[in-house]
C-alpha cells in the first residue's frame, strides 16, 4: 500500500468523482440507492453543494447554499469541468430523516443530524441511548461506504469511460438543456 499522505493527495480526485457520480445517481438511478439500503425512502441533495474546477491551472470554487436552491449553477460548473468536493445530503426512511455533510477528499462526515434518541434521565437509560445512536450513525456510515463500493467497482471497470462517463456527460447536457 502507498504511503498514506501520498495516497491521500494522489487519489482525492476519486472522492470528488464519487460525489459527482452520487449526484448523477440520485437524479437518474434511484434503484442503486435502494439496493444500497433497502430502508431508503429517498436520498436527496440538501442545502449545500461545493464544486471545484482545477482545469487550466486555476482553482475555481463554487458554493451553492440554501434549502431548495436551484442547482443550475452546479450543473453549469460541471459542464465547465468542475467536480463536487462537498455535499449536504438528506437521507430518509419511511419514518425518519438524517442530514449530513460529506467531504469528497476525506469521506469525512460532518454536521450529522440523526433522528432523536430517547432522553437519558437515569443512569440505566444511558446504554439504550448509546446503542440507539450507534445504530442511527451506522445507517449513514453503511450507506456511504456501500455506495462508495458501487462507485469504485464502476470506476475501475474497463467500460468506465465508455459507459459511466458517457452517461454522466449526457445527464449534464440534458439537465442543462431541460432547465
Amino acid at each position, binding site marked *: *500500500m*502507498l504511503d*498514506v499522505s501520498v*495516497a*491521500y493527495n*494522489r*487519489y*482525492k*480526485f*476519486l*472522492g470528488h*468523482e*464519487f460525489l*459527482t457520480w452520487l449526484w448523477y445517481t440520485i437524479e437518474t438511478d434511484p434503484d442503486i440507492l435502494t439496493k444500497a439500503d433497502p430502508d431508503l425512502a429517498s436520498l436527496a441533495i440538501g442545502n449545500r453543494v461545493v464544486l471545484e474546477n482545477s482545469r487550466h491551472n486555476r482553482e475555481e470554487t463554487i458554493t451553492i447554499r440554501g434549502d431548495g436552491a436551484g442547482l443550475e449553477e452546479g450543473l453549469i460548473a*460541471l*459542464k*465547465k*469541468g468542475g*467536480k463536487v468536493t462537498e455535499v449536504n445530503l438528506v437521507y430518509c426512511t419511511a419514518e425518519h430523516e438524517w442530514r449530513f455533510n460529506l*467531504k*469528497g*477528499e*476525506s*469521506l*469525512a*462526515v*460532518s*454536521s*450529522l*443530524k*440523526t433522528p432523536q*434518541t430517547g432522553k*437519558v434521565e437515569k443512569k440505566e437509560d*444511558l*446504554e439504550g*441511548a*448509546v*446503542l440507539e*445512536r*450507534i445504530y442511527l*450513525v451506522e445507517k449513514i*456510515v453503511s450507506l456511504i*461506504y456501500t455506495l*462508495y*463500493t458501487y462507485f*469504485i*467497482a464502476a*470506476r*475501475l471497470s474497463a467500460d*468506465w*469511460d465508455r459507459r459511466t*462517463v*458517457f452517461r*454522466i*456527460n*449526457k445527464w*449534464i*447536457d440534458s439537465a*442543462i438543456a431541460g432547465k
Partner: protein
Amino acid sequence: MQLLSSTLSLTRYRVNGTLAEPVMDTIREGLKNHVIREIDNDPASKSVGWTTSDKPFTPDFEADSFVFGTSLVFSLRIDKKSIPAKIVNKHYQTAMRKRLAGTDREHLSKNEKREIKDDVLHRLYVRIPATPSMYDLVWHMEAGDLWFLSNRKEANEELETLFSKSFKLSIVRIFPYTAAQLLSGLADEKIDALHKAFPAAFDGGAHA
C-alpha cells in the same frame, strides 16, 4: 457525552493487529496507563489521554463501563493552555528589566533571554487552567472498525499516536484510496487499475 449530542462529525478508521488475551483486560490496561493527566497548577502546556465519555473529568476505567453491546465507547481528551502573546511579552519584558537592574549591562545574552522566557512561561502555565476538549470514539472490535467523532486534524493526529501507544495496534484513516483498498473487496487486477487511475472528465462531453 459527545455521541449523544445533536450533531456529530465522524472520521472512520480501520484497526489492524491483534490484542493480547484476555482482550478486555488488555484494553482496560491500555486506557488506564494513558488516562488523561490533569495539568492545572502544573507547568505543562498540553496533556493528551483517554477518559470515560460520560464522566470525562473523573475517569475511572475500573468502575465505569465503556462497553456498549459489541462496541467500546470512550473519549480522547486534549487539555491545552493558551496564553496570549501580549501577556507573555509583558511578563518577559518585566523580567528582563529586573535582571538588568542593578547591573551595568545594557543587554542580556541569548542564553539569558531564553532562560527568562522559559521561566516566564513556566510561571504563567502553572497559573493558567487548561481548556479541555473531548472527542468520543466508537470501536467496533469484531469488525476492526473505529469511528472517531472529529474531523479536526490535530485531534485525529493525537488519536493515531495515542491509540498505537496504548494498544500496540495501528489504525489507518479511511479516505478514498484506503476505502477502495481496504473496504471494497477489490481483486488484485482492480487494485492495479486503482493505482493506474487518473481523473475523469465530467463536462458534458465538452472536452471529449
